[in-house]
């Protein structure tokens, strides 16, 4: 079975561009640079440049491109690039990766199971590309070790990666918890005392495409859960959620909530017109949404037991609620990674993450 399905060309794409290099009415090709680190993912006519809804909330300046035909710019791969050239290529390709000198490059291959399986699918489908991409990242950062963290339940991915990997690259099984993917935690779970760079298997694939194919980052693998068919879709950047959901058979009923990225930290969208952007890995549709009433905290400490940062979420939430931000600061509110594990486990249904965000914002304002 094919792990990842490819979408037919969407009618239009909406690509966020901070400083557009193209004008309305201009014709663009696939892979053409339209902004700093931004490329068109389709060929067609730029029909509008205006502020449009972005999956992370606020509206941002975006280019709307109406698709016609499938004409691509000529991709030019570079042979044997030096570390500095690699950095330049990655930047030019619009890959959001921070390359700093490291001893180790860690690739995250875990997913928010069972709602997201994009990383799992990527490893099954593109093992060679991921390994080569990782090699490139290691070369660019000067790292001698590469580590791929794979969920313990994904034994097939583990087998494939082990069969494909080369010297200097290790795979390690990771207990898939919702918070494992968070960068700092992943670093901590794998290694404590070394300079490490953390990326994902998807980014390694993008790096491969950029260096070996000369192709900028114009598509990404997205897991769609809650449509008629659950699928991993290779979607072009800028594709509206609606088109992807239609590709997966459409809605099962009247959708109540559409969430971009995982269920624990993802953002609920006001409309299905928002586009897939770089870094989008999941679309979750919910049909039955119940608003639960908040009850007082009973100090059951279930949140304390699940907190990956070893914080006291109950103390943070209660103090934030009482506007005692000084207490929040003492209890290291800044260390919270907002993974949502506490709010998930809370029997009183307290919006712990929002209270913590509120405290963080207040403390930042004071400084």
């Amino acid at each position: 079975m094919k792990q990842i399905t490819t979408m037919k060309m969407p009618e239009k794409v909406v690509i966020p561009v901070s400083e557009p290099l193209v004008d309305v009415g201009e014709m663009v090709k696939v892979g053409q640079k339209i902004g700093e680190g931004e490329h068109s993912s389709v060929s067609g006519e730029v029909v509008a440049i205006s502020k449009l809804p972005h999956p992370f909330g606020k509206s941002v300046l975006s280019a709307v491109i109406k698709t016609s035909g499938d004409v691509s710019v000529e991709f030019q791969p570079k042979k044997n690039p030096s570390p500095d050239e690699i950095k330049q290529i990655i930047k030019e390709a619009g890959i959001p990766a921070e390359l700093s000198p490291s001893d180790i490059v860690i690739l995250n291959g875990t997913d928010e199971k069972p709602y997201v399986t994009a990383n799992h699918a990527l490893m099954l489908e593109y093992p060679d590309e991921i390994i080569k991409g990782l090699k490139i990242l290691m070369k660019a950062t000067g790292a001698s070790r590469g580590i791929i963290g794979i969920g313990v339940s994904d034994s097939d991915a583990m087998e494939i990666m082990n069969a494909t990997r080369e010297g200097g690259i290790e795979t390690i099984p990771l207990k898939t918890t919702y918070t494992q993917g968070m960068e700092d935690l992943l670093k901590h779970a794998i290694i404590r005392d070394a300079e490490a760079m953390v990326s994902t298997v998807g980014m390694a694939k993008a790096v491969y495409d950029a260096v070996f194919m000369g192709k900028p980052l114009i598509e990404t693998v997205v897991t769609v859960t809650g449509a008629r068919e659950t699928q991993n879709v290779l979607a072009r950047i800028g594709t509206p959620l609606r088109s992807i959901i239609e590709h997966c058979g459409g809605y099962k009923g009247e959708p109540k909530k559409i969430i971009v990225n995982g269920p624990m930290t993802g953002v609920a969208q006001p409309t299905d017109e928002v586009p897939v952007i770089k870094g989008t890995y999941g679309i979750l549709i919910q049909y039955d949404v119940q608003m639960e009433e908040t009850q007082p905290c009973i100090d059951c400490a279930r949140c304390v037991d699940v907190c990956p940062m070893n914080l006291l979420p109950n103390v943070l939430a209660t103090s934030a609620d009482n506007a005692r931000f000084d207490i929040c600061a003492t209890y290291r509110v800044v260390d919270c990674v907002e993974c949502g594990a506490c709010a998930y486990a809370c029997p009183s249904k307290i919006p712990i993450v929002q209270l913590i965000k509120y405290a963080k914002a207040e403390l930042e304002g004071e400084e």
Partner: protein
Amino acid sequence: MKLVVSAPPHIREDISVEKIMWSAVIALLPVAIVAVYVFGLPALYIVLMSVFTAVLTETIVQKTSNKRITIRDGSAVLIGLLLALLLPPNVPLWIPIVGVIIAIVFAKHAFGGLGHTMFNPSLIGFAFLMMAWPTLMIPAPIPRFSTTLPYVLEYGASRLVETSPLAMIGALYLLYKKYIDWRIPLSFIAIVALSALLLRIDASSIFTGGLILGAFFLATDHSTTPVTKNGRFIFGAGCATLIIIYGHFGNYFEGICYSILLMNCFTPLIDRYTKPGERSWLRRS
């Protein structure tokens, strides 16, 4: 299409305060039934009267103070049931009524209700009764039949909860579902067992229903016990140490109740001194 926009997480564990409280009540029902089997109707009346008074008192308190009635969350029922289990079967029926009123009005709602209690309400009720009517709280001398099944059915029991330690096996379910924490019972039971071994205390005098109730149901009451992980170990160990001291000079059963109450006093202090520290690995860059 009208979409709900709300903050993450977008999935929630299937858990509620009601579930936690009612599960504890259900876990305690078997021992109450054994008590009625051993002691007969007086035990039944004590249990029913305690629970009824608890629910009624909470309703009245919340009605008169214009608060939402929360008797459905099971917390009042649990307080009533726990107090009933601590009583001997020969107390007059007004004893549980007074004890429960003290527990609900003063120990629970005067402190701010569910989640704000400082001391375990059932134990406050028990301590009040012990001090006010010590003679009535003495278990009647019951002819001690030889028990054929120790820990399963104790005919020689003097209080409701002591009739069967094994009937509280439901506590394992609460542990499994993480409705109660495992750290407190672990250090609690471990220290008691270790001391009993070292001090050569007769197991039958210390491993009673009271100890099980204390370790799994009273010392794990959420708001009166520490929230930090290490604090919970300390709390259990503290309870156990005090029980051994109390028990050595007095009575093990009362020792269990008073040691937990005393440790409740230390809860804020324990929490403060076990506050999680700085993470060095995070702030490196």
